[in-house]
């Protein structure tokens, strides 16, 4: 059983609230949900939509067809009528849409009339609509009361009660006019220990659980969600969240905080990352730990600022001048986003390097129902040299040579030992040098010694589906859910599997899992949300494997299960 609901309307009509309330409602009822958002770069007007897929088993990508379209304006009908499934219906209010729907698939609902009748604020049509959707699905309105209180409770109990009343009216109308149209089977019980979370929240939560104490950033869609999440936690957890004057300041502040001894992070999107690359290089030579969230949107330049793309892979691999080690993660689910953000902090401090967690608008905004995260899975180790261990040392050199390339990371001010870091090439003490020998030793320490250790830290890609696949779908980052469901939907006789990379740089070794052998034995199809198949190129340059086929989408929209299945038809034969 599954069902796709799409809510369409203008920016400013409250789509996001409707969507989130409904999603939470379904989740609390025990349905698995997956949502995605499509919105324009404007604050009012235009056309946005919010899509909810609910099912009785886990779902992790979107469908092309819509079963229930809630149209808050006429434009929504024009744009999405074609997307209706065979049983699909459009819920609309002729007054709001200023038109009459013609055809069996139109379900008229008097949202405006309800609001007028109850003499409440016009914006409450949204609650009527939520009530109606719930009613049409034959579900109980009861849980709505608690949810709406959670979301708008701070506006006062009266607002809450009124909204409930309006929703009830919408529900009543739906039940009386369209009872039995969609009858959803009761959900499996037991999603109480599941969470409903999106990629931004998961990264923010991951940072919080990793001891992040400092987050400086400049607002930039679609990365701002992380900052908003952490800002809300700042007071309680003694976390400084500072909005910098620009991205250059953002990364340099974070590096300052990290130098001073606290775990620090910054986040941005591609254009802001461009301004940060000099700072990334600074982290490289000074060996200052830092975690950077790079949340992609379609470029170049301003591009499509509120949409999705995976086009900055090479930029984060190579952005910054000179040669230094770095790690790049590309989580595919909120769960991976959570644990990899944690691993990012861990490796950043352990190896004293910049670690980039690359996400995109799709991952940032999509909500998933997932088993709750577990504290046991977290890497929580404090690598700093401070307290007695530092005070008792006879001497300290910030860049003292060692076989691993790692010098203990002392906290300045925590002892009489000085901590000197330098963006110039330097000696073990951190002072400027120019001689060739020291340069060579420092490059060896910083780069060559650490590289093999880092590579050994990388988890191999995830192999899902046929054990000996004829067809191997390759992906990285936010396409995880999509590829997984494609595998699930392919007929078993096709022997399809997915190979998903969430730790892409350095590319993992193939000693524990010989994924290169797997690649070589299958027809490989690399699926990327970009134009130039960056991941396929990386894979080729690192493993020698050239993917058989490439499927790309770069119009700012994510793949859906159906359009990828269709695109695959050409190859799965």
């Amino acid at each position, binding site marked *: 059983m599954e069902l796709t609901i799409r809510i369409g309307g203008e920016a400013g009509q409250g789509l996001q609230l409707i969507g989130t309330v409904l999603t939470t409602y379904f989740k609390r009822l025990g349905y698995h949900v997956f949502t995605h958002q499509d919105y324009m770069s404007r604050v009012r007007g235009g056309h946005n939509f919010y899509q909810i897929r609910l099912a009785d088993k886990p779902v992790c990508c979107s469908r092309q067809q819509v079963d229930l379209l809630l149209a808050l304006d006429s434009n929504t009908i024009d744009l999405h009528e074609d997307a209706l499934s065979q049983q699909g219906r459009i819920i609309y209010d002729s007054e709001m849409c200023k038109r009459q729907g013609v055809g069996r698939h139109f379900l008229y609902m008097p949202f405006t009339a309800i609001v007028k009748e109850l003499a409440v604020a016009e914006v409450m049509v949204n609650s009527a609509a939520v009530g109606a959707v719930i009613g049409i699905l034959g579900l109980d309105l009861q849980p709505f009361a608690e949810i709406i209180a959670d979301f708008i409770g701070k506006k006062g109990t009266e607002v809450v009660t009124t909204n409930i009343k309006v929703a009830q009216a919408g529900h009543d109308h739906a039940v009386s006019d369209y009872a039995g149209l969609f009858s959803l089977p009761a959900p499996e019980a037991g999603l109480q220990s599941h969470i409903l*979370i999106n990629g931004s929240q998961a990264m923010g939560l991951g940072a919080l659980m990793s001891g992040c104490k400092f987050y400086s950033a400049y607002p930039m869609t679609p990365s701002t969600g992380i900052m908003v999440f952490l800002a809300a936690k700042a007071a309680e957890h003694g976390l400084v969240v500072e909005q910098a004057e620009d991205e250059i300041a953002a990364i340099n502040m974070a590096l300052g*905080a990290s*130098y001073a001894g606290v775990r620090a992070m910054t986040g941005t999107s591609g254009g802001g990352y461009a301004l940060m690359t000099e700072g990334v290089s600074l982290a490289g030579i000074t060996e200052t730990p830092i975690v950077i969230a790079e949340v992609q949107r379609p470029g170049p330049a301003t591009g499509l600022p509120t949409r999705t793309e995976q086009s900055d892979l090479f930029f984060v691999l190579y952005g910054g001048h000179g040669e230094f080690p770095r790690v790049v993660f590309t989580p595919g689910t909120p769960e991976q986003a959570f644990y990899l953000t944690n691993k990012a902090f861990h490796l950043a401090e352990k190896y004293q390097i910049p670690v980039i967690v690359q996400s995109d608008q799709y991952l940032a905004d999509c909500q998933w129902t997932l088993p709750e995260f577990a504290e046991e899975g977290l890497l929580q180790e404090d690598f700093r040299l401070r307290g007695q261990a530092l005070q008792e040392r006879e001497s300290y050199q910030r860049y003292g040579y060692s076989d691993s390339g790692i010098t203990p990371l002392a906290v*300045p001010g925590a002892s009489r030992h000085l901590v*000197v870091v330098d963006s110039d090439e330097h000696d073990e003490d951190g002072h400027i040098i120019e001689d060739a020998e020291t340069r060579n030793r420092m490059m060896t320490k910083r780069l060559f010694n650490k590289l093999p250790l880092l590579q050994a830290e990388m988890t191999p890609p995830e192999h899902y589906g046929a054990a000996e696949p004829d067809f191997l779908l390759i992906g990285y980052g936010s396409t995880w859910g999509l590829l997984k469901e494609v595998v699930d939907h392919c007929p078993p006789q096709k022997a399809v599997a997915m190979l998903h990379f969430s730790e892409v740089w350095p590319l993992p070794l193939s000693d524990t899992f010989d994924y290169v052998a797997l690649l070589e034995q299958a027809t490989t199809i690399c699926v990327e949300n970009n134009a130039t198949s960056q991941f396929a190129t990386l894979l080729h340059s690192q493993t020698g494997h050239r993917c058989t086929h490439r499927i790309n989408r770069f119009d700012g929209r994510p793949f859906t299960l159906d359009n990828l299945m269709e695109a695959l038809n050409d190859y799965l034969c």
Partner: protein
Amino acid sequence: MTTFADYDGQKPAWCPGCGNFAILNTLKRALVDMDMEPHHFTIVSGIGQGAKLPHYTRCNTFNGLHGRTLPVATGIKLANHDMVVMAVAGDGDCYGEGGNHLLHAIRRNINVTLLVHNNQVYGLTKGQASPTTPQGRVTKTQPFGALSSQLNPMALAISLDCSFVARAFAGASGLPFLKEMIKEAVNHEGFAMIDILQNCVTFNKVNTFHWYKERVYELEEGYDPTDRVEAFRRSLEWGERIPTGIFYKNQRPVCGKDITPLQKGPLVGHDVFSVNLRQESALFY
């Protein structure tokens, strides 16, 4: 008690006769006076001649990128507000490449002392015009003379309501004055900026030691550094007579220990892994 020798660092790579030596020595003297132990303070610097300073003394040091001293200093101070943080930058560093950070560090009023080694030229890169180079001066990259007007750091800082705004001269006569000024700036709660007029014997053949010496004078006793409009008026003096001293000060709120997350003490001292996952995930259930 610390002594001058406690601040002995690497051998300076500056030109003989450079004003930077006087600044370095004066800073060390101020540190002795304040009895500040080397590990109790951090100097953040950028790239330029003046910016090499922290290597020439002993202190915690973050010698970062050209132009980016103030964000780094801000991050350090917010992470550890018990640390005394100074920033050392050149006129190109601070008013050119890093201009935006100056504006916003002043607005933020972070408790950092900024020393600008203002030699009115790009020294390390060999003599191009800096923001404080007089308009019209010809250099190899300004063949028609510098096209922009000379930046007035005092006026700029006052316009932004900077918490502490001062100018000094790195010449013998000015040094005791500079020393006191540094001490006052470090002790001042809030962002304190001292623009230090410094000769560059190699690339600035006009604004020489003697040029400055003939012109600088100290703001008169009785000058009221809390009067912003008057401070602005005095900041416009530049030419035959160049005032030095504390032009302006105020006590506006500092971005520091009083802000909510810092009330429990410096971030660097907080517990690291104390957050309860289940509790923080509450809103996701």
